[in-house]
């Protein structure tokens, strides 16, 4: 087998950082415009009040909260791929890890904006920070929203560090390959990294500890987000299934997002040699497993509710199965379960294109799932006189769309400044492993091993 020279690998993966095309500038400009529109709409909403949205009595939560849960869910991609596969030493993860970790970091940032967007008085959001205030008042630690604050911030900080640490050797690489402002900039970012065995050992040790820590953090984050719903005695919310249900849904939507992003990166940055069909195959299989698991949870939830037949819950249930929200529900089932199944289960069909189509469907389906958890239950809560309905208005739709543009923009900018595939980790993947045994035997025989 021909061994790729380290230089060609480095050249290919550094090219997006060192060369900029017109397409980059045009895309950045367009996306920045859409994001600016989103921010403008947010400020319009702050100025005039939340009344410009479709929220009402009793459906006080709608698009903004759906987007919050959706984006936090998307952020679970990176952790699964990076941390779990790192710990079990799955070598196919190498080109994929940084792509995934970047999705996590940016999806978290976007998701964490939505609690601010949905507040009635967002300029007071800093009251959630626990500090000794002159009012002697601390946050209410019994509230799931305060748990959200702690969990999401912990996850965000950990993810950013998890992303930043293995980037240091790559910054050193760029430092050595460039001159001028790039040399200075990446010189500062690489913190004087030399690459001594001691440094490598320490870095890998730190990555291992962080991978071990970040998996429970990620699981706890979406469980805590699910607690925003399950802690309230609202029809179809107050269920013990919500914790695992949300985590599985998050991983599901995260892998779907990763597939889409990887396919785009592969095409636009010409990385076909590195992001190979095998990666999409493996992620496709994982997504299939998640689809089945997700279907299992949905079935569980619905069967138990239907069988129990409590009047408190039946109106909400029927509205999703046969009533007002049923078109959305059945679309969701089709996109999350029916469509991906043949595309991913049949090996001959499971190509990169098929995986991406299935992933797009899953992203739409999972967004619908979040919406269908929130809105029908609130519409049919309490005494029938107080039931209501919800339709979004233009501010919610604009902010929703611009969140996708924000993700694309952040990703684009990232891939411009930092190699989207971790170069040193790819190089490690090229090493033959048999050498260790032979050398160690030799050394033992010669009595040299300390």
């Amino acid at each position: 087998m021909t061994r790729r020279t380290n230089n060609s690998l480095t050249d290919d993966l550094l090219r997006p950082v060192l060369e900029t095309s017109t397409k980059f500038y045009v895309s950045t400009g367009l996306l920045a415009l859409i994001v600016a529109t989103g921010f403008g709409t947010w400020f319009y909403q702050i100025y005039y009040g939340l009344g410009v949205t479709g929220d009402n009595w009793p459906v006080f939560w709608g698009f903004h909260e759906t987007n919050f849960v959706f984006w936090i869910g998307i952020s679970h991609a990176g952790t699964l791929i990076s941390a779990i596969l790192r710990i079990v030493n799955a070598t196919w993860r190498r080109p994929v890890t940084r792509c995934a970790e970047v999705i996590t970091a940016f999806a978290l940032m976007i998701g964490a904006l939505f609690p601010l967007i949905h507040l009635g008085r967002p300029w007071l959001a800093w009251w959630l920070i626990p500090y000794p205030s002159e009012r002697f008042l601390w946050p209410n630690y019994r509230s799931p929203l305060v748990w959200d604050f702690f969990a999401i911030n912990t996850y965000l900080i950990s993810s950013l560090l998890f992303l930043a640490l293995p980037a240091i050797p790559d910054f050193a690489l760029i430092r050595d390959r460039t001159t001028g402002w790039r040399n200075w900039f990446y010189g500062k970012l690489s913190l004087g990294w030399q690459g001594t065995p001691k440094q490598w050992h320490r870095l890998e040790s730190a990555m291992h500890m962080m991978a071990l820590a970040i998996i429970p953090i990620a699981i706890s984050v979406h469980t805590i987000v699910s607690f925003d719903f399950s802690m309230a005695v609202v029809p179809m919310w107050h269920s013990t299934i919500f914790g695992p249900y949300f985590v599985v849904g998050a991983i599901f939507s995260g892998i779907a997002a990763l597939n889409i992003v990887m396919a785009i990166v592969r095409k636009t940055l010409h990385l076909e040699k590195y992001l190979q069909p095998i990666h999409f195959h493996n992620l496709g299989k994982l997504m299939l497993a998640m689809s089945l698991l997700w279907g299992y949870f949905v079935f569980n939830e619905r069967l138990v509710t239907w069988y129990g037949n409590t009047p408190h819950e039946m109106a909400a249930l029927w509205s999703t199965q046969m009533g007002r929200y049923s078109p959305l529900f059945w679309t969701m089932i089709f996109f999350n379960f029916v469509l991906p199944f043949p595309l991913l289960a049949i090996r001959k069909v499971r190509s990169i294109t098929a995986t991406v189509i299935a992933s797009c469907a899953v992203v739409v389906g999972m967004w619908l799932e979040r919406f269908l958890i929130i809105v029908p239950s609130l519409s049919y809560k309490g005494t029938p006189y107080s039931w209501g309905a919800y339709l979004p208005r233009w501010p919610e739709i604009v902010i929703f769309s611009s969140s996708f543009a924000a993700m694309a923009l952040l990703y684009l900018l990232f891939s411009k400044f930092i190699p989207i595939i971790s170069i040193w980790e790819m190089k490690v993947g090229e090493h033959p492993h048999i050498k260790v045994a032979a050398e160690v035997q030799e050394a033992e025989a010669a009595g040299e091993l300390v």
Partner: protein
Amino acid sequence: MSHNWGMAVDLDRCTGCEACVVACHSENNIPTVGATEAARGRAMHWIRIERYWEGEFPDVKVKFRPVLCQQCDTAPCEPVCPTYASSHSEEGLNSQIYNRCIGTRYCANACGYNVRFFNFFTPSWDKPLHLQLNPDVSVREGGVMEKCTFCIQRINAGKIAAGLAQRPLKDGEIQPACVQSCTANALVFGDLADPDSMVSKLAKSPRGTKLLEELGTKPKITYLQQGSWDDAPNK
């Protein structure tokens, strides 16, 4: 001695006239949101008369029930507020502290009775309507939750008056606006900690039930009705 404020609503007396709704609006500076906003479902009636009817005219059967904040002992709206804007007072009331509210609306979602309302816009009163505002009650800005307070300003005024006169509070001396305006005397307000008060006696009445008791909220409002709600329309 610590009070424990409660209410009894006699469904056999209520005529559904909605004088209580109007009185509550005037007393508590509740904005009227206008026709467009009301059509969007943003009306803010701290007390509302829920109407249920069946049949066609002239054989219509109507049932109605005044619903207001039940001041639950184990209120689901209280633990979920991240900033302690919704908490339990020592006199058994569920306090809504406007200054502390950042508008997450979680309390409204957690409330099983849908008695919490949100200021989607900052209300305004064109002159000279601003003169109708009650100086004892604050005006809330946009982004803040509000709900029935059992007219805490009247409770405080009554306690202060009794304290100044150095006498204990008399039963029926404090009346929230809805209680005061009820034409049929269907609403009774008083101190559940006082065994001799009218509301304590009515709370033990065999005609008494609690609304959505199965939610486990321990509401403090007793609804009185001969027979059951499900059987017959209000007589």
